[in-house]
């Protein structure tokens, strides 16, 4: 840090890069598991590089299209990440008060923060990409280093886009709603492309939607010619293409710095003025007081969830990633009959939901000490919280059994029982194996409870498979019309 003048942009940027790197570091067993995985990945990369060292790698047009598709998909994920990073910078307690009260130009602060966001994004994907790419590149295919340039360019563009979108949302809906809506938009953006590809009409005779999409792109020469071929050429080491994509990334980054400084500062100032919401209920206060621990706990958990719509949305949005599975179950050549597919989906979805809500109620308790000093047995509180989690998931859990009931009542009853068992098991696993965390870190909750995640999935598959099998038997295998 002493090689650059203190307070300069470079000095600040190095500081942000250091923070970005340290924010990825984990502790304890998770760190060693991470090192092991990285080492394993590197070994695979070295083996691959050694095997390919004297072998020319062919580059068919499909590879170029593939790079373009992955770049676009990656950009949406990265932009969602950048939006969340921008929201954290603007609306959560951090070092902005310190930086903005120091004699450092606001633009330097903005660019340094953007660089930190871009670095965080790039590091995430670099951990997956570089252990493979670097050995292969070093052992005879140096042109693949273009992938590194493409990654850097995408991260820079995503950071600029993410901040611009966040500030635009803040201007449209105000700072208070911006946090909530920003998180919702980021969540939808992350899954939008993925979901759209699943909803595209499938061509007859094609094994998958992706293959159909590939054909359309190839026919239209998208990805193989013109500007759309830039990502592909850059990834394969074309110096001009590399320069162009990097220039685009740097230009987006510089443009964000030049145009968003004022919006960034006012966004920060607006966001830091937390004003309490007040909505006089007009109700007698006695109605807020409930007899019994279960009702008391449920009322509290339900109120907290109601007042955090972004969090509730994130929980429900996770179900969107199950849609392809569901479509695969009911459509295509090897489809299950609908009741059986619905039964499987019912258990899977409910398990996911109960697990997520259980994490919120049990592991993400905001005031654990209050519960510890209260004259209530821990087991009683945990039971009440699990019931609250189950009740929150209940509306979704009932949908599929009702749908199945239209065709087979016995099937509906079986599905309901298996759904309750699967959901209960998921909640119990979270209770016993979940790690404490903050509600705002919902998307990272599994980082400390990998075993819980794996067990929950296994339980859901077992109960879901059982439900599907039993419903298939009792429904006589009713086929899709």
């Amino acid at each position, binding site marked *: 840090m002493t090689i650059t003048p203190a307070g300069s942009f470079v000095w600040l940027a190095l500081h942000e890069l250091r923070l970005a790197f340290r924010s990825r570091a984990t502790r304890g067993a998770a760190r060693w598991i991470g090192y092991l995985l990285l080492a394993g990945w590197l070994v695979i990369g070295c083996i691959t590089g050694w095997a390919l060292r004297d072998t020319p790698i062919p580059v068919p047009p499909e590879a170029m299209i593939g790079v373009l598709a992955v770049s676009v998909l990656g950009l949406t994920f990265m932009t969602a990440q950048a939006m969340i990073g921008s929201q954290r910078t603007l609306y959560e307690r951090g070092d902005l008060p310190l930086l903005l009260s120091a004699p450092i130009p606001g633009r330097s602060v903005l660019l340094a923060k953007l660089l930190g966001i871009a670095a965080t994004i790039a590091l995430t994907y670099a951990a997956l990409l570089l252990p493979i790419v670097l050995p292969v590149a070093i052992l005879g295919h140096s042109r693949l280093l273009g992938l590194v340039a493409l990654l850097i360019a995408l991260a820079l563009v995503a950071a600029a886009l993410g901040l611009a979108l966040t500030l635009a949302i803040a201007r449209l809906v105000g700072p208070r709603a911006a946090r909530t809506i920003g998180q919702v938009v980021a969540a939808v953006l992350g899954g939008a492309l993925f979901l759209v590809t699943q909803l595209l009409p499938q061509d007859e005779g094609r094994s998958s939607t992706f293959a159909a999409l590939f054909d359309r792109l190839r026919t239209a020469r998208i990805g193989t010619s013109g500007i759309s071929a830039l990502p592909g050429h850059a990834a394969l080491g074309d110096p001009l293409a590399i320069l162009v994509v990097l220039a685009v990334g740097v230009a987006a980054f510089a443009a964000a710095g030049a145009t968003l400084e004022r919006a960034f500062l006012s966004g920060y100032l607006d966001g830091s003025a*937390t004003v*309490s919401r*007040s909505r006089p209920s007009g109700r007698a206060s006695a109605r807020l007081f409930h*007899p019994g621990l279960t009702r*008391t706990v449920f*009322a*509290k958990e339900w*109120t*907290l969830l109601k007042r955090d719509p972004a969090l509730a949305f994130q929980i429900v949005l996770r179900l969107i990633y199950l849609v392809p599975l569901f479509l695969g179950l009911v459509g295509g050549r090897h489809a299950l009959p609908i009741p059986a597919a619905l039964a499987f989906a019912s258990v899977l979805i409910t398990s996911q939901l109960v697990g997520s809500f259980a994490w919120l109620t049990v592991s993400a308790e905001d005031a654990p000490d209050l519960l*510890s000093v209260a004259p209530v047995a821990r087991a009683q509180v945990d039971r009440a919280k699990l019931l609250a989690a189950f009740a929150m998931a209940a509306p979704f859990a009932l949908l599929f059994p009702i749908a199945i009931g239209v065709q087979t009542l016995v099937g509906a009853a079986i599905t309901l029982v298996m759904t309750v068992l699967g959901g209960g098991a998921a909640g119990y696993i979270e209770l016993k194996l979940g790690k404490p965390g903050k509600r705002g870190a919902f998307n990272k909750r599994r980082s400390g409870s990998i075993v819980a995640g794996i067990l929950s999935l296994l339980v859901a598959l077992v109960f879901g498979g059982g439900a599907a099998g039993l419903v298939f038997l009792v429904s006589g295998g009713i086929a899709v019309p």
Partner: protein
Amino acid sequence: MTTSALRIRGLAKSFDKPVIAGLDLDIAAGELYALLGPNGAGKTTTLRMVAGLAAPDAGSIEIFGIDTQRDPLGAKAITAWLPDEAMLYDKLTPLEYLAFVAGLWRMGPAHAAAEADRLLQWLDLWEQRDTRCEGFSRGMKQKVALAGALIHDPRLLILDEPLTGLDATMARLVKDALRAQVDAGKTVIVTTHILEVAERMADRIGIIAGGRLLAEGTLQDLRDRAGTAGMTL
């Protein structure tokens, strides 16, 4: 015979190193007792064990004759703990928070509602009763937390550095509230590292350092023992 509100014998606790080492303490019912000591002396650790937030490595704790390790729920039922950082839910209003605390202490709804209304008015929180706590100042959060500690009418009230970060008006309000509790026959224990706070609030002061009680008594007793007109820590 004076009833013992808190009786500690041979209390010991270690983390990486011993924090409490053989602490004995007696606090009579109906007094305001200040546990005074420098940072790291073991004040908070001691009272966290009394409140049931941590288990001692050795020793016994009795709250009004109830052994906290044999009957933890019975002890908690008559105790209130108020840490220096309020245990609140940002997205709940003061009224909702009090409803939750009342539920945890199994108060009847009607009685709890009446007490909540009374406390909110007494602590000048009535206008904010339906406002979420997320935008409250530190002082207002402390008031909400204090209301939560008082709503279930505890016999023993434990407060960790209750005046830290409060302005003069809030500090006066908290002191008056605690004195009112003592006047009503409750027992109050506060920790502080500031002698002036202990001077102005407490009936008796215990000085703790290195996990041991070094001296205790009224302020005059301690001054006489020290042989000086004023003491500093």
